[in-house]
């Protein structure tokens, strides 16, 4: 059975070009980049090359990029660095639709004595900017708002937000894990202080991330140890994966046009055909300000896990915001924050496409999904 992978916001396949550049550093070139000999120095040089490529993807300067182990570490490092640079300030702000990497950290900090403001979103998933701006105080240590939402693909006006926050002299961090590689990002046009990147969302392997730290931002390391990463993160560098992330960043920059034309076109086709062929289906979120690869579709009167497992039988890999898939009993906090009714939230499916998807694959999904929904609805006591 062929696998049709439309779950690229969860993770992506490692690009063959990425794997190829990584392999030699798993075998013959095993030097320590910190060593004095040229055998290690050669490796150090490759790390700096990778750093420049990551920097170039978001138009930063290479020394503003530090490597981490994942997106979560980038988020945690940024948020901890910000609050420890202003220990007297006890108010922090984020949105109600963040990834657990940020959401759960803020909830944790609220138990440690921080006052947390969670900025709401409207029915279309757009952030309530007035609410955000009205809650900025002299006591605010950090504002952390994601650039694009992993479930709906909604894009927030991060450049604009960063300008406003800057004027208040508050540190601004953005979790850009879903945005990087799917839309052009230029940090020089913004006042973002810190920005998180995850490798495995852009065809590098799992286990590598990066954090952009604007020059002049007060910073304290999360991992204290050696002088690596300019003293911002101790520990011997994950050389092989850093080289992989460098290549993946270069590819992402090269594929940006394709992401918007090819991937965006496929996503639109998938969405339009599903809405046309399946009654009582709707898109969650605003279709205007959205990543080109993501769609969150709700099918009323059926439950998401059942849909996913039926699709799984056909080799189709997607995700759901349903409660049952997560092991919790509440459906996705993102859809609930948007006020999506339970009837639709339980039956939500997220398709997130990538550059490797083909039109044939989309045709296959569009053909196979309507009978699955129909079958499950015929089993449902609520469907007449």
């Amino acid at each position, binding site marked *: 059975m062929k696998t049709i992978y439309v779950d690229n916001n969860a993770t992506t396949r490692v690009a063959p070009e990425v794997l190829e550049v990584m392999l030699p550093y798993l075998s013959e070139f095993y030097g320590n980049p910190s060593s004095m000999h040229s055998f290690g120095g050669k490796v150090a040089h490759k790390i700096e090359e990778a750093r420049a490529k990551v920097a170039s993807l978001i138009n930063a300067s290479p020394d503003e990029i530090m490597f981490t182990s994942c997106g979560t570490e980038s988020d945690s490092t940024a948020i901890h660095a910000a609050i420890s640079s202003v220990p007297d300030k006890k108010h922090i702000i984020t949105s109600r639709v963040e990834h657990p990497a940020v959401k759960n950290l803020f909830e944790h900090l609220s138990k440690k004595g921080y006052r947390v403001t969670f900025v709401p979103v409207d029915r279309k998933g757009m952030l309530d900017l007035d609410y955000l701006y009205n809650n900025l105080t002299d006591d605010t240590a950090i504002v952390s708002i994601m650039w694009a939402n992993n479930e709906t693909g909604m894009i927030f006006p991060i450049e604009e937000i960063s300008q406003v926050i800057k004027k208040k002299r508050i540190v601004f961090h953005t979790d850009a894990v879903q945005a990087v590689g799917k839309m052009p990002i230029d940090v020089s046009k913004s006042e973002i202080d810190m920005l998180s990147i995850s490798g495995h969302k852009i065809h590098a392997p799992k286990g590598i991330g990066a954090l952009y730290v604007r020059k002049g931002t007060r910073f304290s390391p999360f991992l204290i140890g050696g002088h690596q990463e300019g003293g911002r993160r101790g520990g011997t560098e994950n050389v092989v994966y850093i080289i992989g992330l460098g290549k993946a960043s270069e590819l992402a920059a090269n594929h940006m046009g394709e992401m918007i034309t090819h991937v965006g076109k496929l996503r639109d086709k998938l969405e339009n055909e599903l809405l046309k062929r399946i009654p009582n289906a709707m898109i969650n979120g605003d279709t205007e300000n959205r990543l080109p690869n993501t769609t969150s579709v709700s099918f009323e009167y059926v439950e998401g896990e059942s849909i996913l497992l039926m699709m799984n039988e056909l080799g189709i890999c997607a995700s759901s915001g349903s409660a*049952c898939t997560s092991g919790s009993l509440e459906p996705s906090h993102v859809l609930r924050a948007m006020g999506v009714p339970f009837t639709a939230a339980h039956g939500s499916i997220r398709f997130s496409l990538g550059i490797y998807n083909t039109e044939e694959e989309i045709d296959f999904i569009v053909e196979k999904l309507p009978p699955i929904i129909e079958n499950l609805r015929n089993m449902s006591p609520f469907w007449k």
Partner: protein
Amino acid sequence: MWEYTEKVKDHFLNPRNVGVIENADGVGEVGSLACGDALKLTLKIDGDKRISDAKFQTFGCASAIASSSALTEMIKGITIDEAEKITNNDIAEYLGGLPKEKMHCSVMGRDALEKAIADYRGEPGKEVDGEIVCECFGVTDLEIQRAVKENNLKTIEDVTDYVKAGGGCESCHDKIQEIIESVNGTPVTEKTRPSGLTNIQKIRLIEETLEREIKPELKKDGGGIEFIDFADNTVFVKLRGTCSTCSASQVTLKHYVETRIKELVSPELVVEEVKQ
């Protein structure tokens, strides 16, 4: 991804007895769209009180559909007196087990069956009794008490897995804890953990914890444990049965036995194995 048994997958992908019996003799409806799962069970019951046909409609996840399908297969052809004895565990067992977090699907099946039988007999529904404890999922104190008793539940998390109560806003967690304690007789929370114990008291509690909590768990895997000695806050034990030869026994000892002892007796205790 959930670890579903082949039987769960089979009943999900090829559900038996889907539909509604016209002019049914007993109808049981439980759950709602908001809760994320719902089941409508319809029964045809003969003159000799035998269930001649059963059909279901389910909105829910794979295990909810599989539990409903399994239930209809289990009750077809038996009398309602026999059907009444079916527990949620029987449904789970018929399916070769359900993931812990999905046990509420089997409870939903049992509840629908009870309602359908009550409907046949013209009795009012039982579930209106009691006081709502969990507002999010509309679960009463009596339902929680019953689940705790029948399934020997120990924690709030267990209760959520079986009847969903406490899985939403969590504001009812204190009430659920009280119910667990009142049913089990002995408080098991951290809040009420005894402090400043004498050695004699510690030894008694260790013995009790081993007997009541740990041995039954190890026994499930064919293992056992014996309390040998206690000195300087160290609990010396000997592993028995499959545990004594199992390569993962050190993990069991530290992660399970020691954690439970620390939790239920005293946090400063450590557990050591006495070798032959």
